[in-house]
């Protein structure tokens, strides 16, 4: 595809319609759009991307070894942000129905192509969001026109979006790409090689198949689990079946026994009916014997209880008499305590009196005054002392018992006392025993009478045996009933379990899935082999083509002989010895990267113009020149550069490469104009924001930030 004409309106700093004519009779493929910063180079670069792909992204970067696009740029929105929206701000604010459009005219294989993309407000002035815009795309090929999605599909065929970065090269992002190409980055340019070979579809196919296979294997695993479960269930079901069989056999045996016993019981019943009186007698005997046995048991219990309680009976009796002795001793103890207290008290008094007499001076110890009748007082003290001593000897003579001996007596007597309530317990247990014995004796009397009654002509012994047999059979039958019911219930439950486990059946559902899985596996292997072969073949082709370009562009082709792209798709420069150059300069690396990009583009076989924003960044003058020389010499590939004034000087570039340039433009603002547009005079006068030509009087406002496109003259 060859670009012939470009028209842009209201995009970036371009207000209104601006046009670029890329036609030139000489068929030159080099083009340059020069400007200072901010005059719209990148906007123009973006305008073409927008026209082709309908979207523009912020500068991309390498993340985790992969190239990632930046955020998508908005068409309208907040103009205070950097980068702002794509639409020209003045048009956005001033026009009643703001509209931005780009039209690309091109030709391919002799057919005219027109790509026209427009974004027009559908809500009147100042639409706030991109959703407020009507966005249309019209692609005309020859006489046929295609709209929107259909048109986009056609653009995609002409200019695959996944190869965009090899045709729209942003010099400022190039350093990032250099890092990607250089060894050490994960994956290197593997993805790019796959892109140029249009392998993503194959890769996606592999991914899809792998997903399909994964899902299938998941299903198979789930079915296998189910199958294992079923096998386990089948084993359980078989066990249950055996259990049912065994239980059924057991039930049948029990039922046979039950039936046999029931038959014998009925026979015995009818036999015993014929001797009703005798049966009644036997029943009485039976009842009495049962009662007797029960009463015997009760009597045994009460006799045992009585014997347990009676161990304290002797103490009860002893205490009847000994308690008075205990009381006596207790009283004695009281007396001893009382005497002891009195003795202590008298001794204390005697001590005080003796002390007072021995220290007697005739002066009162309380008031320190002389005692009136000292002698009489002393005599009285001596009399008191004598009296107390007499009293003490009387008390001591009376208390001949020691407290210890009384305590010992009380202790020994206490051992003979029965625990509280012993007597009542013994008497109660004795009463119970008497009552139980009375009942037993009564029953035994009745039993004796009944036994002695007898029945004439009846074999009592035989009858008794039969009667006992009947009782046993009745008991047996009543015991067998719940056993049989329980067995039946167990069998029922087992049958339910058996049904729940699916009766031990196993299905074989995933045989076909196994076959499909195997086929997918084979297909995947073929696809992966193909991909690997394509990739390897592409790697060598890219390496060859990049090396060819590199040798043309580099300023020392004898020392730096080409580009190496290793099996990990990492790029490096090849030295004269065929080995990797270890310390290349950044300019050499930049050149290598450009050559790899060019090689990728050429290998892709996509014929489309190349747009290179800020192409001279990080390159020295020699490389910059070599770059233009090489790329502008290429036939069939238009190479459009967007340099700023610091990269390539306009005059120098046009002068040096005029023979290769098909068209050149300069983007300016009014403030950039040093010469009068009208007469060419080079000394305009500045009056505030107005410049005035001193020669012809032409005036222009230098505060306006609208870009003007100036066509530069080049060698025809």
């Amino acid at each position, binding site marked *: 595809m060859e670009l012939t004409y470009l028209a842009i309106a209201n995009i970036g700093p371009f207000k209104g319609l601006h046009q670029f004519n890329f036609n030139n009779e000489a068929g030159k493929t080099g083009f340059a759009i020069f400007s200072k910063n901010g005059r719209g180079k990148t906007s123009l670069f973006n305008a073409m991307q927008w026209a082709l792909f309908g979207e523009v992204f912020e500068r991309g970067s390498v993340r985790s070894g992969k190239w990632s696009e930046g955020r998508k740029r908005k068409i309208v929105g907040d103009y205070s942000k950097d980068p702002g929206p794509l639409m020209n701000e003045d048009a956005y604010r001033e026009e009643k129905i703001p509209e931005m459009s780009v039209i690309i005219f091109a030709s391919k294989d002799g057919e005219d192509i027109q790509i026209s993309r427009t974004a027009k407000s559908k809500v009147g002035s100042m639409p706030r969001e991109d959703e407020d815009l009507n966005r249309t795309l019209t692609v005309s090929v020859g006489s046929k026109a295609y709209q929107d999605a259909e048109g986009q599909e056609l653009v995609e065929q002409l200019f695959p979006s996944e190869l965009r970065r090899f045709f729209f090269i942003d010099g400022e992002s190039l350093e990032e790409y250099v890092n990607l190409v250089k060894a050490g980055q994960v994956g290197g340019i593997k993805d790019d090689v796959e892109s140029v070979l249009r392998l993503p579809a194959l890769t996606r196919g592999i991914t899809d198949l792998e997903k399909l296979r994964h899902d299938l294997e998941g299903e198979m695993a789930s079915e296998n689990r189910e199958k294992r479960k079923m096998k386990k269930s089948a084993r359980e079901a078989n066990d249950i079946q055996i259990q049912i069989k065994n239980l059924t056999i057991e039930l049948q045996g029990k039922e046979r026994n039950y039936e046999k016993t029931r038959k014998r019981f009925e026979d015995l019943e009818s036999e015993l009916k014929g001797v009703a009186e005798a049966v009644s007698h036997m029943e009485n005997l039976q009842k009495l014997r049962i009662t007797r046995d029960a009463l015997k048991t009760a009597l045994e219990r009460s006799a045992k209880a009585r014997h347990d309680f009676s161990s304290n009976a002797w103490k*009860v*009796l002893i205490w009847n*008499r000994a308690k008075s002795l205990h009381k006596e001793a207790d009283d004695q103890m009281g007396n001893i305590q009382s005497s002891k207290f009195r003795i202590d008290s008298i001794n204390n008094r005697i001590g005080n009196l003796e002390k007072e007499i021995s220290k007697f001076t005739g002066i009162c110890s309380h008031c320190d005054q002389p005692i009136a009748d000292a002698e009489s007082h002393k005599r009285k003290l001596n009399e008191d002392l004598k009296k107390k001593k007499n009293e003490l000897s009387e008390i001591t003579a009376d208390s001949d018992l020691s407290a210890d001996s009384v305590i010992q007596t009380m202790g020994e007597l206490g051992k003979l006392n029965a625990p509280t309530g012993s007597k009542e317990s*013994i*008497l109660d247990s004795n009463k119970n025993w008497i009552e139980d014995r009375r009942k*037993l004796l009564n029953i035994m009397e009745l039993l004796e009478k009944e036994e002695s009654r007898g029945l004439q002509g009846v074999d009592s012994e035989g009858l008794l045996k039969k009667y006992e047999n009947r009782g046993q059979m009745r008991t047996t039958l009543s015991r067998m009933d719940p056993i049989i019911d329980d067995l039946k219930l167990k069998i029922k439950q087992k049958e339910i379990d058996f049904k729940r486990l699916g009766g031990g059946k196993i299905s074989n559902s995933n045989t076909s899935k196994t076959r499909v899985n195997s086929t997918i596996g084979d297909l995947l292997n073929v696809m992966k082999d193909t991909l690997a072969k394509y990739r390897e073949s592409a790697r060598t082709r890219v390496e060859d083509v990049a090396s060819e370009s590199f040798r043309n562009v580099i300023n020392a082709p004898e020392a730096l002989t080409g580009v190496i792209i290793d099996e990990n798709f990492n790029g490096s420069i090849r030295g004269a010895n065929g080995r990797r150059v270890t310390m290349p300069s950044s300019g050499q690396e930049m050149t290598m990267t450009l050559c790899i990009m060019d090689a990728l583009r050429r290998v892709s076989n996509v014929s489309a113009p190349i747009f290179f924003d800020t192409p001279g960044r990080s390159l020295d003058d020699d490389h910059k020149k070599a770059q233009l020389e090489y790329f502008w010499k290429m036939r069939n590939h238009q190479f459009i550069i967007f340099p700023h004034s610091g990269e390539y000087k306009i005059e120098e570039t046009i002068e040096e490469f005029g023979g290769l340039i098909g068209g050149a433009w300069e983007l300016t603002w009014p403030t950039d104009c040093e010469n009068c547009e009208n007469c060419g005079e080079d000394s305009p006068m500045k009056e505030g924001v107005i410049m005035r030509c001193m020669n012809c009087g032409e005036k222009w406002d230098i505060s306006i930030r609208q870009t003007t496109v100036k066509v530069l003259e080049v060698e025809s």
Partner: protein
Amino acid sequence: MTELRVGSVSVPQDSHNLLTDLVYDKNKSEEDRPFSAIVEAFRFAFALGYASNKRGKRVGAGITVAPRQFVVSDYEVLFREICIEEDISLGALCSDFAQGGCEIIKAHLERGGTVLELL
């Protein structure tokens, strides 16, 4: 002052038989046999004699009660003074009281009563 003598404990044969018949037998629950061992029955008879202040006269050969099982010194606190006063041993006095008790029991049983009713 006379020393307290311990002496041995014994009852006549017929009393011993009576006491034997008062010992518990699980196969004879309907019989009046409230005591777990013969010494228990003896102790009951002795206590009954003492409580009723009845001493029996022991005639004929006596059957000794094992001193380990019936320790007469346990009752010294009750009988010391009597023994010294009457110059008899503790064992003899206990035996007399036991014999007295046996006589009471025998009479009560003959009237159709039960032993423990004597409490």
